[in-house]
């Protein structure tokens, strides 16, 4: 799959609601990357599989989406958020067992050159995010990765818009402090 050039429009959402699989494919191409990125940033064990599950979960509600493309985006990330919570709860109950894949094993000693580049890349972002409390991290991810508005984030996490704004501000301030102190180590 590639990033879709076709953005989701209200017409696409409407067509998908009527059972047009091509419209649904457009929705998937447009949103699945963001959903997967959000799930990955939240530490979900198998973000690709959960992404598929999220979109299968969207199916029964496609016909009742209110708000067109914006409403659909909120619905998709609401389901993604719920699946992420389920995943974390499930893993809290039982340890995850995954096959060993050498290519994905990051346990290695960094070279001096790599060390010089600390501060760039996915791991740096994730490590920086990891410093934040859960709710601040959640707000920043939904705002930046899912590209949702303050109001939509507030609805998804069940807080007021003012509270979300405050969490966002505190989150950014905490990251600023972390960056100033250079506390993030990989």
């Amino acid at each position, binding site marked *: *799959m590639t990033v879709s050039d076709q953005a989701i429009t209200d017409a696409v959402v409407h067509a998908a609601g009527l059972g047009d699989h091509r419209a649904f494919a457009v929705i998937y191409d*447009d949103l699945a990357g963001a959903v997967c990125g959000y799930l990955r*940033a939240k530490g979900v064990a198998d973000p690709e599989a959960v*992404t598929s599950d999220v979109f299968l979960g969207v199916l029964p509600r496609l016909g009742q989406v209110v708000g*067109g493309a*914006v409403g659909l985006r909120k619905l998709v990330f609401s389901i993604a958020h719920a699946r992420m919570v389920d995943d974390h709860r499930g893993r809290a109950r039982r340890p995850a067992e995954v096959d060993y894949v050498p290519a994905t094993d990051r346990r290695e000693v960094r070279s001096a050159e790599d060390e010089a580049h600390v501060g760039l*890349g*996915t791991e740096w972002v994730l490590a920086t995010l990891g410093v934040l409390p859960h709710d601040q991290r959640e707000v920043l991810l939904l705002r*930046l*990765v899912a590209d949702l508005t303050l109001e939509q984030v507030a609805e998804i996490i069940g807080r007021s818009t003012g509270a979300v704004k405050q969490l966002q501000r505190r989150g950014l301030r905490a990251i600023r402090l972390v960056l100033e102190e250079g506390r993030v180590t990989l």
Partner: protein
Amino acid sequence: MNGPRDGINDMRSKQELDQLARVPNDGTRLDSVDPETSAQLTRFVAELRGFGRVPAPQPSDELAAVLAGAVPIEMARRRRALRLPPRRSMFAVAAAGVAAVTLIGVAAANNRLPEPAQGFVVRVVNDWTPIHISVPQHPTKDHSAPVPSRSAEPVTPKQAEERVAPSQQMTSAAPIAPAPQLGPAKPSQGLPAATAPTDQDDPAGDDATPDGGVAPSPPPTSTDSDDDASSPVDDPGDDGPDPGDDHRLPAAEG
């Protein structure tokens, strides 16, 4: 639906976020803001946004079939809608199953199930589990004899015959309902002592003569000889109704 107002709000919201990354809005004095930190924070925000701009992952088989149109969306939608919440339903079904099995097992062990069910459950339990439940002891239709009197006063054979007569009339029309006091029973009632001691194979018969001190009673005085022929093995239920035994009961208890 998407309106221009939403777009403006989104834009304002994003701009505000970027602005926050550049300049904190938390009371920090602007001249104390480290430009390098602000640059790093801006980069952090940009990289975090990049998480949402990756290609869509490979869909699962089920989803791929829907996306390709192999499975109509409507069908997939109905299938998903019918799917029960997994954990709760599993727990509920498991709990109901365990409760049902336990209830049936306990009822069977106490010989409380209807006769056909009792026989079936006993057979299943005895054949398939290490647990052993004794053979059902419900009185059958050949138990046309009356329920023995529990009164402590002695009953003469004549009185016994008088008592037998109406019950026989009754049982000829309809079989006697299972009487719990006829079953494996409370030895203190002395009923088992009156059971047929000649039935050595019957575990109930063994139980019925715990002290071994009661003399063998004469065969039941059932007038329905066909029933006896149809059930060659003496059922312990035969033992109680014998009017000849009745008069001995108080003596056994006493």
